[in-house]
């Protein structure tokens, strides 16, 4: 049996490494430093994605069996949540800067299109496996799973994974073009903020057509990811306003 999700994540990481190589070279930076940052971000993302998954699915965890090696491995192997990965990745980025003394923010601003690119590949894996599935829908593009360990079988579903793949690729292209325009005009990049706002808004809307709510938790009518999207947008907007005021105050 082919591990589709793992395969597409590996392909995504390979595509991300190639895209990162060109972005880093174009901006005259060190590719070795980029790989080290990617490793720290990757480790942070794995830990963060797993932690958030454990938090949102804590009801299904049998804590009395946590010392059982087979159960622990199943727990560690089963499930990642993207937003947890994003937050963990940011912590990994911070730690990398502190430990290796690399100007991580400069690298992150330049190579940010790599994240939606890798994410798009991950969502292709989701589409193959049948996880992160959409609401029942029988319009154009509907998908029917005949065999899936997550999605309901035999029911036409909205192709939410395909929409997220397309959205992530568009975000990657927009960020790439934005970075190139800023580089040519000598302007300061704000690609991190742009990515966070674009993805959070896109994800907030997509959550309305996802149907795996019972597996991820709902609070006051909104899913965990929608609440995180709101928090991310609020934090980015507030920090940008504060930063703008600080700059205006000093001029």
């Amino acid at each position, binding site marked *: 049996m082919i*591990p589709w*999700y*793992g*395969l597409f*994540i*590996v392909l995504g*990481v390979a595509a991300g490494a190639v895209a990162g190589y060109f972005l880093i070279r174009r901006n005259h930076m060190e590719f*070795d430093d980029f*790989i*080290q940052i990617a*490793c*720290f971000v*990757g*480790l942070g993302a*794995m830990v963060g994605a797993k932690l958030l*998954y454990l938090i949102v*699915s804590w009801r*299904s*965890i*049998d804590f009395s069996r946590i010392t059982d090696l*087979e*159960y622990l*491995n*199943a*727990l*560690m*192997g*089963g*499930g*990642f*949540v993207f937003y947890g990965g994003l937050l963990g990745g940011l912590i990994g980025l911070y730690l990398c800067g502190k430990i290796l003394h690399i100007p991580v923010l400069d690298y992150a601003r330049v190579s940010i299109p790599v994240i939606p690119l890798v994410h798009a590949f*991950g969502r292709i*894996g*989701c589409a193959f*496996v*049948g*996880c*992160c599935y959409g609401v029942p829908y029988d319009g154009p593009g509907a998908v029917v799973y005949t065999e*899936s*360990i*997550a999605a309901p079988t035999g029911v036409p579903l909205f192709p939410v994974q395909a929409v997220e793949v397309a959205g992530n690729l568009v975000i990657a292209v927009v960020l790439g073009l934005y970075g190139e325009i800023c580089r040519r005009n000598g302007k300061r990049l704000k690609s991190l903020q742009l990515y966070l706002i674009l993805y959070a808004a896109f994800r907030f809307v997509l959550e309305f057509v996802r149907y*795996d709510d019972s*597996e*991820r938790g709902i609070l006051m009518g909104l899913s965990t990811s929608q609440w995180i999207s709101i928090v991310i947008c609020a934090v980015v907007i507030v920090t940008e306003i504060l930063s703008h005021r600080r700059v205006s105050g000093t001029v």
Partner: protein
Amino acid sequence: MGIASLVLGIISIVIGVFSAGSLGWVGAVIGIIGIVLAIQGKKIPDQANLSQAGFICSIIGTVLCLLTYIACVACVGCLALLA
């Protein structure tokens, strides 16, 4: 640094080949640490060759482990089966 990265790379390959299904997460973490150590080792002239070998082994081990370890939310179902 070079020897450490090579050892970690080989361990992650062994885990990736023989038990990635159960210990893939350990192998992936070991492989990623191996990559970072290899890049640090490449900066020391005496260790450049060993570090290069460690770098390649760590990448191969990490890829092997990630392939079989990473599963999406789909595997919530697996947990339910074990419970």
